[in-house]
């Protein structure tokens, strides 16, 4: 079932998603490619799609999670993570 009425928030902006979409997929369809400050001059972004590279890690309701593994849900508060200093 496709519904445009369901959305989560990404840095405060409503992002619509289809059922069974991950956060990464919904963000990609919304044209969002930069997922955070990343580390070591490497911007946060989608890369491997299977939870291995950790590059798409975002904050989901305050907890760090891979956007590619996390199912989109109505009302989730997803945020870019600011640069991590080592």
């Amino acid at each position, binding site marked *: 079932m496709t519904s445009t009425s369901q959305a989560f928030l990404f840095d405060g902006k409503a992002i619509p998603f289809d059922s069974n979409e991950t956060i990464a997929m919904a963000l990609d369809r919304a044209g969002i490619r930069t997922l955070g400050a990343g580390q070591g001059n490497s911007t946060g972004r989608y890369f491997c799609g299977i939870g291995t590279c950790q590059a798409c890690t975002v904050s989901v309701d305050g907890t760090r999670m891979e956007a590619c593994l*996390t199912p989109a849900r109505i009302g989730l508060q997803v945020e870019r993570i600011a640069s991590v200093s080592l």
Partner: protein
Amino acid sequence: MSDREVLVIGGGPAGVAAALEMARGGLKVTLCEQGPRLGGAIHRQPDDPSRRVRVPKAQRQRWQALAEALAASPVTVLCRHMFAGVEGSGAVLLEDRASGRIVTRHPAALVLALGGVERATPVPGWQLPGVVTAGGLQMMMKSTGRAPDGDVLLAGSGPLLVAVAAQLTALGKAPVAVLERSTSAVSLRALAGLIRAPAYLWEAAGYLLPLTKAGIRLQRGASVRSIVPAGDRLSVTIVDTIGLEQRLVVDRVALHDGLLPNGNGTTPAPNGPFTVLAGDCREVLGGVAAIADGRLAGLAVLARLGQAAPDLAGAAATLRRERRTQSALNTLFDYSGSDAAHLPDDTVICRCEGRTLGQLRGMLAAGDRVSAREIKLNGRFGMGACQGRFCAEWVAAFVASQRDGQPPQVAEIVGSRWPVKPVPVSAFVDLPPSSPSE
């Protein structure tokens, strides 16, 4: 049924086949999958059947048979449970993503079916948003049933590039080009190996014919030299066999240089349960072999725990056949590394922490012979959040190419401590200890 629990990590074909075999043998089986759904990277599909991405019929039927058997079995399935490793006392740690808690288990045996990871060879700019792995791009397509928007360039080496190109084309979004870096010709030996496995030839034909019909540019011996941002797009310099350079401006670049076993977390823990590896994390042989290998892993556990085990001579034969086929395929896509001499010093090697080739070259030039542990602890290669999954193999090969003698081992660079993936500290300290039924 035995009251002893066995644990399977990974809900792809190898994990499901292992779980079924052990359940049939009378063991109490729990199957853990990190993602929201089973199927592994190979059998991902959207819920909406009208949107399904075309896959070979035999592949679809294989998963359907496994999924039906699983539904009819007493196997307990836990999705969104990440394998975090085996800790010192031997407990298996799982992070339950829905509750944000670590759960511990003490299974009588553990089957690890962690799948493969893609190899992507470093090029300047491969860390930019819009550059993905071919498998990552395919995952998006398979899960949503939609082609990603924008112009796509596929580059690297391996049959997956052609498969992804065909799936993009079938969704009406043909790639700009497919660049295959290998130049090896089809040898008689390889051909003989493939003819013994006609399913692969049919699959290849099923991918190649639509690409030829659609006039897709398939170029052997060509590779990506660098990627730079061009506004919202990516400007890619490609180089062909005779060294001619060309520039392409695209929206996405999908890189792929074959598959490697996902080895992180597979080193046996001193006090851990009896552990068997199954599927691509043991040996990359593909989806057919993964089912056979999963069954054999299940058999090994049954034998170890003294349960009656069936004769699986057929599965062993399947594994041998798939190994022959894979070795024939490997001669066609002979990834033998890429020449690093042309890579500039500012090429990012460690994608997690932005460590560059110049920093690695500097370490090697500093005099003392650098050990595998120093590469990680001082150089920070393999130290970042992915734990070396996308740089350790390349770094080990590069270091070996720069000096004689014993090359550093990937496992030594990476190390084998839990957690094998980042786990929030809150999963350990904020919440009361969990007490699952063990």
